[in-house]
């Protein structure tokens, strides 16, 4: 319910109580999401080190707590208790603003993510566009971080990161257009709930593959981790950061990874619905399916990091602009044509009926 609408026909006291409840609920929900995301980020770093260790026949973190489970907390305490160093001639305000901005943007995006049916803070009509807007803002804050450090390495890292994110955003946009052709809505809940016949899902499969590669590039993860390529530009835009500000950058990076995995599971894997249309599994709470799907994509993130070497910069750009972009563009046209010829575009049948009725109406008037 909207407290502002109710204001007109209710007394002020009731309005205050209602908006108070609404405010308290919003704050509680946001806190829950933020704490949940941060815990997930902490244990994602742990999972990454464990999985990488397992793939390289090591044990990973083992000393702090049972099975090293307290390692992320120890790391966090270490980072928070260190001294923040601001390089001389750094642009102080922008230097400190950039990590804060990046971190808060990676949390803001979660307001439109539905965890289950109705479990969403802001059920807005333009959810997908909101996610895009947030990610374009985070490009800006990465450039800010790179520029404000007043270091060649950091600046190169920032430029790398920005050009990479922009290149892959274009094909990601076209992939999302393919999904929107099927669902007919920008609202993330409606995207999950829209019916998808099997042949449509088969057509979406190559888009899923390209999307998975694109989110690797978007999150600056291996094999596209040129922005913080340790061997070439020491640490990219994060070189000059230390302690809290460094922790915020890392938190933002991992929160973005989880976010992109969640978005993939919403766009392609059916969000909170049971997998493969197995509706008899509906008794399991939706959020568990959602978490499992997201975790599977996160495992893919870590798996590629253990498997593939880093791309060269021209290879990265070639893949984005010369392979993904033309292919997705052709696929959008192909999918639109297929859906149109099989009357499967959302609202197409109603539109046809509507025009037929209108033509009939005009004909009748002419006869009179």
């Amino acid at each position, binding site marked *: 319910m909207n407290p*502002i609408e109710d*204001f007109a026909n209710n007394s002020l006291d009731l309005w205050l109580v209602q908006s108070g409840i609404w405010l308290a609920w919003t704050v509680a929900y946001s806190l829950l999401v933020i704490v949940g995301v941060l815990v997930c980020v902490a244990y994602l770093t742990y999972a990454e080190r464990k999985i990488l260790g397992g793939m390289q026949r090591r044990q990973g973190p083992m000393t702090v707590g049972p099975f090293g489970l307290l390692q992320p907390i120890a790391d966090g305490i270490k980072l928070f208790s260190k001294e923040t160093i601001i390089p001389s001639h750094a*642009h102080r305000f*922008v230097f400190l603003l950039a990590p804060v901005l990046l971190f808060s943007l990676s949390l803001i995006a979660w307001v439109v993510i539905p965890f289950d049916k109705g479990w969403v803070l802001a059920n*807005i*009509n*333009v959810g997908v*566009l*909101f996610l*895009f*807007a947030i*990610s*374009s*803002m985070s*490009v*800006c804050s990465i*450039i*800010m971080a790179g*520029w404000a450090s007043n270091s060649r390495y950091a*600046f190169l890292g920032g*430029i790398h990161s*920005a050009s990479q994110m*922009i290149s892959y*955003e274009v094909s990601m946009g076209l992939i999302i257009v393919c999904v929107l052709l099927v669902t007919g809505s*920008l609202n993330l809940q409606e995207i999950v709930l829209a019916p998808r016949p099997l042949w449509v899902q088969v057509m979406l499969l190559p888009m899923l593959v390209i999307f998975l590669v694109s989110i690797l590039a978007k999150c600056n993860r291996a094999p596209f981790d040129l922005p913080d390529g340790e061997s070439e530009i020491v640490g990219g835009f994060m070189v000059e950061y230390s302690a809290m500000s460094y922790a915020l950058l890392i938190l933002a990076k991992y929160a973005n990874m989880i976010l992109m995995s969640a978005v993939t599971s919403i766009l392609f894997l059916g969000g909170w619905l049971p997998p493969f249309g197995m509706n008899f599994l509906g008794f399991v709470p939706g959020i568990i399916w959602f978490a499992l799907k997201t975790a599977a994509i996160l495992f893919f993130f870590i798996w590629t990091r253990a498997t593939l070497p880093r791309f*060269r910069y*021209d*290879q990265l750009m*070639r893949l984005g602009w010369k392979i993904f972009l033309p292919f997705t563009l052709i696929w959008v046209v192909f999918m639109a044509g297929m859906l149109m010829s099989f009357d499967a575009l959302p609202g197409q049948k109603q539109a046809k009926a509507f025009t037929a009725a209108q033509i009939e109406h005009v004909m009748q008037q002419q006869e009179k």
Partner: protein
Amino acid sequence: MIVQAFAFYLFAGILILSALMVITARNPVHSVLFLILAFFNAAGIFVLLGAEFLAMILIIVHVGAVTVLFLFVVMMLDVDFSTLRKRSVSYIFPSIILGGILLFELVIIYTYWYMAPEALTNIAQDQSAFEGLSNTQALGMVLYTDYVFAFQMAGLILLVAMIGVTVLTLRKRPDIHKQRLHDQYLRKPSDVLEITRVTPKTGV
């Protein structure tokens, strides 16, 4: 209503302040960052008006693409801004004249405001067809039907501009080594690798 009015004045205030900072900031990178802030607040005002589609597109296009390119250019240019500022003092007289002309024209436009009758009928048109639609759908319904020609024309102009930019900036540099991916893919390990059994103290 109170909340909305408060939000409007907040957005509008920050918008005007950051727009002022864009032209007064000493560092051009700071100007671009204030420009981003201005766009963001303009998007906030769009959301208050119920035009959430326009708000998101404003951020995606202007913040995500246009200002990022601005930032690239401003950061890459190695310009000594203090000398530039000194030289700009000599342009102050022509710029005052230009600004005066613009202001004069704005005043004329404002005093002789006149709307074409066609525009008035457009405003008075029946809006009931868009009842209950989200504004993304409503925009799509007019953009791809009534205004499809103008829409496609805009796309075509952008395409021409894009091709023009590519032609202008594409140049062959013989002094730079460029990787040919095709040759690289055709390379086999047997062409470049050789395994030999070396007896000690003889060398290959």
